[in-house]
């Protein structure tokens, strides 16, 4: 038998998307939203999907979560085909109403433990308090969500994901509705938590800077229908050094790819318009 050291642990895939294609049914036929997208995130990796609005990145996340079924292609979670939604992948949304308003912050965080893992009430309370401490919300445990600020609500949602035994988090533009300062604080805290907890992350965003800083791997998607343009390895970039030539060159490269792509998209639309004439 081969001796295995800590230095060399083969990375196991946490989730995998294979040739995902999604068609939406419309009044006149169908509309392709996602076209043949594949990616793999190994354990502890932070995979970012970046693309312009309407490129199907949220649809990809919804397919990963099991909320919608792909028209073609497969999703694997820990090597096994995923069927339907389940608590083995916890989703964090952009919308603040993801916290259930009729439950206190602590009850919200304890909720998945109670309904999905069947944990006793007392243990769920303790674990919820512990998770809330990790995200810095220990002083807002027993209040109702409507009294929290936007940033605090997203922190509570992160705590609700951390409290479970799940270590796959799917985040759909979680910080997009926050002001710049709060967004930066939450990005920092998310990365610190990722370091500490070692969860695997799928992070959807339309901000180039956020994509490069939050992820270890960047998956660039074209606009409508979403196709893979290219991927970047962004593990070297940290929030602390969001500057420098390397960083700037990646930003401008991504920018250029998105812009080029937009130009092509525009040209294609223009040529379509001209055709009938």
């Amino acid at each position, binding site marked *: 038998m081969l001796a295995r050291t800590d230095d060399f642990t083969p990375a196991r895939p946490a989730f995998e998307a294979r040739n995902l294609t999604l068609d939406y049914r419309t009044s006149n036929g169908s509309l392709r939203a996602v076209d043949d997208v594949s990616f793999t995130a190994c354990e502890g990796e932070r995979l970012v999907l970046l693309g312009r609005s309407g490129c199907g990145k949220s649809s990809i996340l919804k397919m990963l979560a099991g909320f919608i079924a792909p028209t073609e292609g497969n999703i694997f979670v820990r090597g096994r085909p995923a069927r339907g*939604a389940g608590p083995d*992948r916890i989703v964090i949304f952009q919308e603040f109403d*993801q916290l*259930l308003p009729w439950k206190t912050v602590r009850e919200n965080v304890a*909720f998945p433990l109670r*309904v999905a893992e069947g944990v006793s009430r007392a243990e769920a309370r303790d674990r919820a308090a512990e998770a809330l401490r990790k995200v810095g919300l220990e002083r807002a445990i027993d209040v109702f969500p*409507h*009294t929290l600020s936007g940033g605090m609500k997203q922190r509570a949602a992160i705590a609700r994901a951390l409290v479970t035994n799940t270590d796959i988090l799917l985040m759909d533009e979680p910080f997009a509705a926050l002001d710049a300062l709060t967004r930066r604080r939450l990005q920092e805290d998310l990365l610190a938590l990722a370091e500490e907890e070692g969860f695997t992350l799928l992070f959807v965003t339309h901000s180039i800077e956020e994509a490069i800083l939050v992820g270890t791997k960047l998956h660039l998607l074209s606009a409508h229908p979403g196709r893979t343009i290219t991927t970047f390895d962004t593990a070297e970039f940290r929030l602390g050094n969001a500057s420098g030539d390397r960083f700037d060159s990646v930003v401008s490269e991504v920018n250029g790819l998105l812009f080029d792509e937009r130009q092509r998209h525009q040209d294609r639309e223009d040529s379509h318009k001209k055709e009938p004439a």
Partner: protein
Amino acid sequence: MSDIARSTPVRIVPPFRLPGWGGRLLRKILILALLAGIWQAAALWTDKPILIPSFTATMTALADGILNEGLLSASWTSLAVLLKGYALAVVIALTLVSIAVANGFARETLHTVVSMFMPLPAIAILPLAMLWFGLGEASLLFVLVHAVLWPFALAALGGFDGVPETQRLIGRNYGLKGPAYIVHILIPAALPSILYGLKIGWAFAWRTLIAAELVFGASSGEGGLGWYIFRNRNELFTDKVFAGLALVIIIGLFVEGVVFRTIENITVRKWGMQR
């Protein structure tokens, strides 16, 4: 400049307003006193007590009715029937709406049936009910269920439809299905609409019951509040008729202002789901 600003904090003086609960109560009492004053003046001016008894005469008759003529027990007779019909209707409606949530065909059916029966006044089917169930509580329950079921089902269904997509997905994310999904996500998320439906249903039930009792007394023999009004009108005790009507209003106000208000305060208002 900034030092001065810091040393003299700006105090925002609110316009004159009595604070909180006490203020609201006082305003209500003021409005009621004003209305009673107008009533008293109108009665004194017309001076026909057999047509319009004064406010004081009505209150005397009300006190007399409560103390000597069992008006409260008559009211309780009415309320007991009402609560039975109301509870029955709410249970049936929640069951139907739960089925409608899970099944597209059932939902279409419920929508159609609600639109059919909503415009039909409950009291209009009383003659039919009397034919089917005879002169008794069963007939009253039948019209009561009809009065409450459809408006409440419509409000509840609307509430379920309005549950935010995010909260639905959260439920699915944690693997909730069927009854657990309805209990943990749909019902609490739709509670503002459900409470609204309960209030509408209550008002419909109360007026239907009083109207039905005008046709025949409540089943227990001693008769309900509607019957009290009808009997006294026959004997031209107009002050007692007014006393009965006043009690109908008082009970209505109590249920709306105290019972439902309290339920809202400890639920949807506390949760910030309703202002």
